[in-house]
């Protein structure tokens, strides 16, 4: 038998919405534990270190240093450390042809959603909060590099 299932989810982001709003705008918003001051990016709703249940949101510069990167034919990913964060972060690389060991957060590129209509691409790009890094850029230059 053949079955085709199409599901359109609308997922509430809860207390992490400021972090996701930041990503959609290409900005890095970390969580900072109100108790032990641990800074997590991606943001957390509670502290992984002291388990405090209240965090505040804190903008980061968006600059990150590559710790390890993995390349494949379709995509490249990296484990990076964002400036000001106490955690590392797994990201997708928007310009994997670059070998620079640093970069800055950027908006998800629209061409990462193949086989979709223009409206679907625009809708997903506007709403799907991915962690993308543009290598070789600092926040002052990245606006011109954002896709």
């Amino acid at each position: 038998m053949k079955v085709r299932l199409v599901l359109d989810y609308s997922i509430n982001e809860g207390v992490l919405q400021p972090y996701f709003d930041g990503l959609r705008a290409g900005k890095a918003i970390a969580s900072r534990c109100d108790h032990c001051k641990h800074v997590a990016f991606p943001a957390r709703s509670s502290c992984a270190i002291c388990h405090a249940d209240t965090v505040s949101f804190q903008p980061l510069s968006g600059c990150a240093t590559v710790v390890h990167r993995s390349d494949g034919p379709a995509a490249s990913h990296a484990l990076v450390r964002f400036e000001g964060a106490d955690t590392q972060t797994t990201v997708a690389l928007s310009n994997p042809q670059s070998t620079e060991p640093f970069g800055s957060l950027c908006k998800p590129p629209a061409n990462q959603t193949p086989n979709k209509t223009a409206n679907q691409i625009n809708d997903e790009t506007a709403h799907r909060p991915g962690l993308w890094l543009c290598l070789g850029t600092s926040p002052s230059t990245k606006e011109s590099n954002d896709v």
Partner: protein
Amino acid sequence: MTGNVTIAGGAMTPFNRRKDGSSFRDWARLALNGALLDAGIAASDIDSLIVASESDFFTLQLNPAALLADECGLTGVAAMRVEGGGASGHLAVHAGIAQIESSLAQRVAVLGVEASASHLSGARMGDLYSLSFDAWTDGMTGVDSTALYALSALSFMARTGATSEDFARIAVRNRAHARSNAFAHLPLDISAGDVAASPLIASPYRRLDCSPLSDGAACIILARATDLPKADRPRARFRGIGCATDTVRLGERQDAGRFAGKALAAARAHAMAGITPGDINLAEVYDSYSGAQLQAIEALGLVDDVIRAERENVFAATGAVPVNLSGGLLGQGAPVGATGVAQIWAAAQQLEGRYPGKRADRQPTCALVDTHGGIATLNAVSILEASS
């Protein structure tokens, strides 16, 4: 733990990509009926069914435990489904042990089944698997399973000096073990050069470093020996079990290459068993990727120096601690819900001296089985021994 829970019997279907038109319901019935036959008991002797299946998106069947109880002629039994990503099958066995130890049930059928290969395309399965980590961060970014394991492996390589050649040796050896396993998905005769020449997926991993998506089912029956007919063979029994989680996000771990949650699960299992890792002389380890086998052995503490031991063939059939003689996930295959059940079934048969595939050169007396979900995020470990 009392050590009273034995494996009364078991069975599995071949693990592969089904091209014969058979359904996951067929595989489940085959595995369950085979396990009953092996145990020498009837369906009416079963009072609890525990089904392991990772995702309703794979089968397109919600509430599979009720369906499979009905399909397998077990209507009336207690039933539940257990899910913990890649560890689902192993966790279902732990749930069965708990039922028997607490006298909630006498004879439990643990049935793992998954249609990971034939129902959906590999790309769509990859999309679904990428939700196995933090779906809101890695999932939304499209950081898939292979990329996460690759980043973890790179961290492990940087710390330990492990090389792609070490990984390739495992990819070759596990497939060679699978050549003795009639149920294996990838019984391949390959060389390290073949691994290095296979298509790049996510550096350092190439196609032959990755375990396959498989269809299949496996079932074991758990019971106290006193609740079973007398057997003319030894039955393997559980001596200790442990389960532990790690942070979901790789970047939050102190060392992205160390499987700390697995180490915790193993420590709990060893403590319950009252033994040390040095007592283990056979292991079935969760080798979703070639390098992950070394990361797992390190976390399980089976040897002091995992890289040196790997290079000295300690984990071969001739070595002190043979690992993945079934072929592991790399060779035997990985129908997710069935994977952990089949790992335990392979170790049990080795302890009972009746494994039909590759056997250890020295008869093992104490075996460890290791399974995980995520990237060693939800870890299940069991220690088994032979009983007379």
